[in-house]
């Protein structure tokens, strides 16, 4: 892998709406293995945030521990980041979101970090509909500790040392649907065309947006027989639809569904345009999403794309009825009752 990155950028590359260049969304140089799927996902995050013209300081990126959780160093260098402890990013993100509802939260995790050590926190963040885009960089193995199978490895998948995984793999999208996740998608690190709009939609979604991204581990799980290799994923990908996130202000304002294109309005005045590819599937109908997912699984296909979105999603702040002013901005005057009130309280105990 190359460690020197040219600082030169084509001066003709356009600035985004807030006058920032794409490079302002980049981070430090990756130290992951050359060809790692995670780096492609980092690239997609950079592209999505650049195109959406997110102010970097308004976004907080959080992660747990593992290869995937290292990546927040490699994108959005001007955003605050929090590399927490293994499997516990959801709780840290929950606390952060409680303190300041105005920031955008991007959580990055891996299959070990989410489906094993962090399963408890993952499911409860979904249950509470925490407003976060939660990306799982899913390679079916533990890279940093030399390639052990993870809980998302499919039964029957063969790892680099030739051993066949005996245990059922956990399908994070199926689990997310079951738990009531309000935005569920799957993608592939090798398909930026699909991934970038999904990231944009997930960042926009007011609630828990899960994107499970198959992201092959070139070092430990890219061998023949692995069901998380580049080749296998390319051969078995089945997309639900081609989607795009369209800001409201643009032309599509009052577009009616036409032909195979469906327009899903999001709360912030943007629209997901879904070019339906899959039959018997409606991203607004959870049952159809679950059916579609089960069907793909039975056929040994990897269902990708937007799987489900709930346009009525109410996030944790809405459910708790917290103030519009972020809690971290309330002053002592607002927060501390007076000495007089304390006197009254004392009377209750006399």
């Amino acid at each position, binding site marked *: 892998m190359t460690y020197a990155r040219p600082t030169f950028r084509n001066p003709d590359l356009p600035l985004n709406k807030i006058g920032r260049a794409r490079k302002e969304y980049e981070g430090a140089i990756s130290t992951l293995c050359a060809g790692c799927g995670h780096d492609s996902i980092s690239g997609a995050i950079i592209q999505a945030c650049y195109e959406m013209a997110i102010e970097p*300081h308004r976004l907080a990126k*959080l992660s747990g521990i593992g290869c995937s959780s290292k990546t927040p160093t490699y994108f959005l260098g001007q955003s605050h980041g929090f590399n927490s402890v293994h499997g516990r990013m959801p709780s*840290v993100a929950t606390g952060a979101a409680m303190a300041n509802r105005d920031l955008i939260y991007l959580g990055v995790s891996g299959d070990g970090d989410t489906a094993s050590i962090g399963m408890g926190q993952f499911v409860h963040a979904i249950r509470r509909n925490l407003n976060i885009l939660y990306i799982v960089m899913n390679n079916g193995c533990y890279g940093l500790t030399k390639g052990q199978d993870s809980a998302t490895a499919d039964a029957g998948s063969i790892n680099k040392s030739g051993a066949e995984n005996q245990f059922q793999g956990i399908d994070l999208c199926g689990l997310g649907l079951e738990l009531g996740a309000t935005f569920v998608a799957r993608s592939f690190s090798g398909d930026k065309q699909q991934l970038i709009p999904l990231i944009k939609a997930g960042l926009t979604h007011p609630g828990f947006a899960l994107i499970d991204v198959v992201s092959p581990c070139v070092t430990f799980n890219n061998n023949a027989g692995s069901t998380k290799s580049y080749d296998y994923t390319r051969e078995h990908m089945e997309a639900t639809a081609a989607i795009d996130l369209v800001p409201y202000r643009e032309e599509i304002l009052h577009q009616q569904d036409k032909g195979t294109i469906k327009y899903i309005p999001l709360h912030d005045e943007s629209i997901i345009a879904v070019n339906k590819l899959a039959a018997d599937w409606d991203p607004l109908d959870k049952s159809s999403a679950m059916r579609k997912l089960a069907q793909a699984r039975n056929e040994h296909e990897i269902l990708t794309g937007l799987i489900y979105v709930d346009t009525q999603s109410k996030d944790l702040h809405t459910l708790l009825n*917290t*103030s519009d002013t972020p809690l971290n901005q309330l002053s002592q005057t607002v927060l501390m009752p007076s000495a007089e009130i*304390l006197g009254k309280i004392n009377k209750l105990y*006399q």
Partner: protein
Amino acid sequence: MSQPVLINDLVVRFATVNGTGSASANNMFAKAVYRMGIPVTPKNIFPSNIQGLPTWYEVRINEKGYLGRRDGIDIMVAVNAQSLKKDIESVRSGGYLIYDSTKTLGEDFIREDLHYIGIPMMSLCMQHYNDPRQHLLMKNMIYVGALCALLGMEKEVFEQLVQEQFAKKEKLIPGNIQALHLGMNYAESNFECPLPYRLERRNLNQNKILTDGNNACGLGAVFAGATVGSWYPITPSTSLMNAFEKWCTKYRIDASTGRKNFAMIQAEDELAAMGMVLGASWNGARAFTSTSGPGLSLMSEFLGLSYFAEIPAVLFDVQRSGPSTGMPTRTQQSDVLSAAYASHGDTKHILLFPSTPNECFDMTLTAFDLAEFFQTAVIVLTDLDLGMNDHLTDAFTLRDNYQYNRGKVMTAKDLDDAKVWGRYLDIDGDGIPYRTIPGTHPSKGSFFTRGSSHDPMAAYTEDGDVYADGMRRLEKKWETIRSRVPGPEIVRFDPSHNEAIIYFGTSSYAAVEAMDILQNQGIALNALRIKSFPFTEEIIEFIHAHDTIYLVEQNRDAQMRSLLMIENAIPPSKIKKVLQFNGMPITAQFISDEIQKIMQQAPIHHS
């Protein structure tokens, strides 16, 4: 059996069944004593169970102001058939047994050395109330009424308390007043009232309140400006979060919008509870959680992150009897070491040891200030006795012109003005770096928070020297902390005494009384109460100024002693252990007996 009259000095124990409404009647009795101006200290002794098991409520009344638990029950109100035999056995010789005489007591239950006062509680209920549910509840008021007469208490005080208790359910007042009178009248017409144990009005509770430590901490968190509270239910800390929510609901709802100026989250476990605290604190809110021993164990990993990444956190550990699940409804001071050094690697945490509800309130404010100023975890160590029992305590007060100390936080302007800013740079030489809150500035002040090793600019490093420098700076910060935590209370220092007693937390009540007991036997001790860790210079000097220290703790392993020895190289032989760990609040008699035993084993010249 004629007895000398004893005024304002007795222990009454109520033996009841949990879940039968006896708690509020028992509380009313304690409150009535308080209202008569006499110092009182009630304690709940309860099972880890919801309904149907024996529970006791023990009220010590003492006009000298001794507020610790005392062994020896003078009056037993025994209304639980299940535990009756043992309850009778537990009364001190010459004491009184008040029982429900609806059914005659069998011979097995008769002790020659006790006075029996039978009140036909159930039959009075049956005669005067129709609703079977009321039979149970009114029975409680009947024994309270009987006690009022038997102890010569003021019935107006009880009537007033009934009025207040049912202010929102007025139609219940007459029935309850009637029950009070049924008890009073029965006692007055059938027994010589008052008994030789009696209560007389005093005026000793001026500016005092009767409340528990969990309420005080929860209220303190509201005043301290905490906006995020996350928790996982665990006895005996649950009521702390309940109190926070109650007071927030009262004082933290925006009047114009009805929206909450706080967020409370019941987490999936204690790990998540602490993770939420760190996330919120990192993002600039004041956040806290409360737990007990098992939760502290689970929070350890995050406490290490708090220490190393320098993120404020406030944790209340309402200690209970360990190890493991231990005795969840019994008290102990056995998390001292695990709290001080919680987490792997070289970690240390600030500990605060309040001893009264008043101090719980005040130290909660201190805890948030220290956590933010030093950007680290502060653990407030209370215990079940302090947290869940009412204590007679000074009324809550706010320090004059009290302002939150938010510590070294860079504003957008600070960032623009700063020549250089690095998250872990020690600009001031006190080991405390400057932090930024996410979202402050469009292009400056962002950094990557991590629990892996980092350099002063917050960049990841595996350079051992850079790592070691960071660890040394944290040590330097620890020294600054030592100079800023609440110092000890030096209760007595007479240079001519060469022995002293040291205690902390809820042992204080009993320790103060034990000093008087020993004094009466010609043993004079100096005394110091520890209020925080790290130990300040005053504590070390105090220890060095004495030949022998008796360190009172409510745990088996003398954990505070270990901490003193480890941190300050105090020779083990110097600190004698006075340890009670049976889960009951420690008594003065125990402390004075133990100290005398130690003195006899190793005779030392005491002045």
